[in-house]
């Protein structure tokens, strides 16, 4: 707002300065044209125009339709003063304008920084939110993966345990079988031909008695 006011003031001052410059210019033009009319054979000045040359030796001629300066006014001094005023006004306006521009630029810069900061903060906020979501998703996925791995590990451990148990049973059974066979072979080898069937008589008859029914049935069915 201040920037706009400064700008308007600057423009007004500038406009005034332009008007003053135009007036000075018009005055100079009138002055030169008055000197030309005073030459021999020239046209007389316009009716009602005040000219310094005609009425006063050093007074400038009034511009057509303009206001004739009163006598005794020092035109160069006025020009000098107008120029100084104009330059001062222009310089003041330029300085103020410069300050306003500087302030506006500063505020604009601050605004841009603030806007940028807001945008960046918003983006950062979104980024943080998305990052948090991604992190949660990753953690969830990791947790699921860990659970799956633990389940698989348990399954494998159970499988390995079962397989080990089966293997152990198999090896034990095989060991028993081999041991039994080894013992049987050892006994057979040890006894050799020295088997005392007389000592086995009771066992032989007992075995026959124990399976008498089966043997009898088998021999009966045979025929």
């Amino acid at each position, binding site marked *: 707002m201040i920037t706009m006011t400064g700008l308007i003031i600057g423009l007004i001052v500038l406009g005034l300065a332009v008007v003053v410059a135009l007036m000075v210019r018009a005055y100079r033009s009138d002055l030169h044209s008055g000197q030309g009319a005073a030459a021999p054979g020239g046209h007389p000045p316009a009716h009602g125009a005040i000219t310094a040359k005609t009425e006063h030796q050093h007074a400038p001629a009034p511009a057509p339709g303009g206001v004739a300066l009163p006598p005794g006014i020092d035109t160069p001094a006025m020009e000098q003063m107008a120029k100084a005023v104009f330059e001062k006004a222009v310089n003041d306006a330029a300085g103020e304008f410069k300050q306003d521009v500087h302030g506006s630029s500063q505020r604009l810069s601050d605004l841009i920084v603030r806007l940028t900061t807001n945008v960046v903060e918003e983006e950062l906020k979104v980024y943080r939110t998305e990052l948090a979501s991604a992190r949660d998703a990753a953690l969830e996925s990791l947790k699921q993966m860990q659970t799956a791995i633990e389940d698989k590990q348990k399954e494998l451990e159970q499988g390995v345990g079962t397989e080990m148990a089966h293997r152990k049973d198999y090896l034990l*059974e095989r060991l028993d079988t081999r*041991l*039994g066979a080894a*013992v*049987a072979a050892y006994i057979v080898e040890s006894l050799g031909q020295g088997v005392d069937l007389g000592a*086995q008589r009771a066992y032989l008859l007992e*075995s*026959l008695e124990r399976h008498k029914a089966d043997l*009898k049935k088998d*021999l009966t069915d045979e025929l």
Partner: protein
Amino acid sequence: MSFKLPTSIHSQDQLQFCAEELHAHAAVLRSKAATHHAAANPQGHPPDELSLDSQILIELLVADKRADAAAIEALATELEAMLAHGARVTITLAALASRALRTELVEWMRMNLKANLLVDFHVNPDIAGGIVIRTTNRVYDFSFRHQLLADTKRFTKALDHV
């Protein structure tokens, strides 16, 4: 004619041999009868040239038939019928059984299982001991080896108690 086989005659080989021998003896008797030599053995004792088993079989006949060729021929024929149709078992032992043990086993079988049962004895030291009985349909293994191998865990259990 039906008779009870003596326990000393229990195998197929013995029965086969006796049947053939008795056929031959009957033929000899017929030949002698044709040449009037039948009275050479008036007491009816079987001739000494026959095997002990054949002599025992002939002694199963009544005394006046022991020199009768037809009776001996019939006896031989009945032995062949036993060979063809009689029940039989094979007994395997770890060693050669004594005559007394063989007789006892055959007596037990003919008394408890079937009369005139033919029993063949085999020897297999690998069974370590006990008896293996094979009929036409089945094998009854009561050998020590089978007992040992039937329950191999018994050995490891026994080791646990050592």
